[in-house]
């Protein structure tokens, strides 16, 4: 099993301005990420993993922080607020509303296409 997951990320509605003015991005994220305390069950660690910390499969919540830390160029408060996307941002996972997939808890799969659309257009 691969240690990373490839994703296609798209930004719309003006959000692309925060991400180097580029609408389409291809990113690679780790398949397993540190579990934050208390909110997720620890999974069985793959053999050979020296790090004893509990891990969870990478999810949308993690991706949002990952994007902020690795792709976001400016004005972080226009993308992320209170640990999730700012109100007014629509998130589609493979063309479906993320609310249908459990929002931040949706576990990412290789080849997923995630779209972030701002409805506020700066206004």
């Amino acid at each position, binding site marked *: 099993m691969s240690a990373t997951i490839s994703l296609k990320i798209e930004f*719309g*509605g*003006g959000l692309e301005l925060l991400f180097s003015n580029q609408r389409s991005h291809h990113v690679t994220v780790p398949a397993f990420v540190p579990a934050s*305390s*208390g*909110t997720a*069950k620890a999974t069985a660690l793959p053999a050979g993993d020296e790090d004893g910390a509990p891990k969870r499969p990478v999810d949308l919540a993690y991706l949002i922080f990952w994007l902020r830390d690795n792709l976001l160029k400016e004005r972080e408060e226009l993308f992320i607020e209170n640990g999730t996307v700012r*109100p*007014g941002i*629509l998130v*589609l996972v493979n*063309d*479906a*509303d993320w*609310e*249908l997939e*459990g*929002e931040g*808890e949706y576990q990412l799969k290789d080849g997923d296409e995630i*779209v972030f*659309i*701002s*409805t*506020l*257009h*700066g*206004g």
Partner: protein
Amino acid sequence: MSCGNPVADANALMQRRKKYDKTNSCVKCKVTQGNLVIRHAVYCKDCFLHLVVHKFRRALEPTVNPKPDGPRRTALKPAGNLLVGFSGGLGSSVLLDLVHRCYVALDKSTMPSDGGRDHPRHERVWKKVTICYVEVCDAFPGMRDRTEEITQHVKRYDDLEFVPLRIQDAFDRSWWEKIGGKSFPSEIGASLADEALFLQSLPSTSADPLTSLRAYLSSLPTPTAVTASIQTLTRLLLLHTALQTGSSHLVLGTSLTSLAVSLISGVAQGAGFNIREETQEEWTPEPETLMGLDHAPDASEGSKTGKKGKRTVRVVRPLRDVGMKECAAWAWWSGVPVVGKEKWVWAGAKPGIATLTKDFIVGLEKDYPSTVSTIVRTCSKLAPKGEVSGKCILCGRPAQRGVQEWKARISIRDRPPAPGSTEDATAKTADAEPLQPSLTPYLCYSCHTTLTSKSARPLPSPWPASAQAPLVSLPVWTEARLSSAIRDVDGAEHVHAEIMQTRQVGQDEMKGIVDEFLLDDQE
């Protein structure tokens, strides 16, 4: 489920509440898996796209005919052309796309599946469709001019005319005369620094429109007032453009979310009397402000004037049942690019009521989506009490009778000077300014509040260099009405003839006037 320690016991945490009801299959076709959640209901992509078109038509079509349909649905025959107010924002972009698909390109996928009277084989509903865009960048320092981008964007839609305006046209006499406004010989300026809003003639060599606009905005007391004024100016520019293009209908891209914002922020600024106008209104220009309406350039094109020379523009918001999220999904799935708008900010400005309301409502929509539609539904049940007394000279909406009397009763005013110096004070006030005309009696409650409601602290204006001009020009439609009012004072009796004048009354004089009404409670 126990309320135990989540780390030790995985079942201790309460299940997160689902954001949709029942299953994740589409509630309409029940077959396909859902793509979108709207207010707890799940829709698949196809059903959702049809639903948006259906809601758009359902909100617009009953307003097309001059009189509402009787028991039988009649064909759509509007009294004039259609003007689409376009701001570059999400709602406008979706609106323009829908108008074009349904009424110009006649996209079959948007037609009702049966034949019927609205079938494209019949002639088009709207003879002429015009898009009007008002560029506001000159009102804010450093704001980008988007006119060119918007011009390119609207080229996607063939068969539509495009009229770009600038916000300073509201102070431009040549624009006013071009659209058929009655010219006024000289301008009347208002002193916005003084809450009495005194009027005075301006020298005939008045400033250019841009300078007038900036002086006007700089004289406003609060950031809320700046936002409200720009919105009012834009709306009146669109209404007059509708007249010029022979349009009987003006459609705006206000979504359900934006409507909730404007309803709440309107009430917060004192515009409750016009709460119904915020959703839909019929506007008629004041006859004395326009050259015989037959002179308006496109008046003859496809417009029928009901009574002699009387033209009405109906303002409709067809997306008022379509939330912001739905607009975004529609735009994304239908390939509609959105040019976007910028925030209206300037150095040192705190957010005004409109901005704060929008932040609140957008946050509310995320966590409790049904509340936003409840706000709109509840507001639609409201009807204000009170009589209408003419139309506000600034915003063109019905003004409530008795505004100033009410304000005087609820306000704490400056006290006249102490009894010891009364005599001097009386003499001074008597000799002071001769009775001066004021803008106040012509204004509705919210426009008066917008112009006079000051903050305790002085606030930075967008154009500090223009700040505190003693007298500022008013928008051209206001000037036209004022100048007509003054003209008529000398002439025959006219309902607008009276220009009320106010002056401050000294304590002794006031006592003299009310003396006979005072109860004798002292020996």
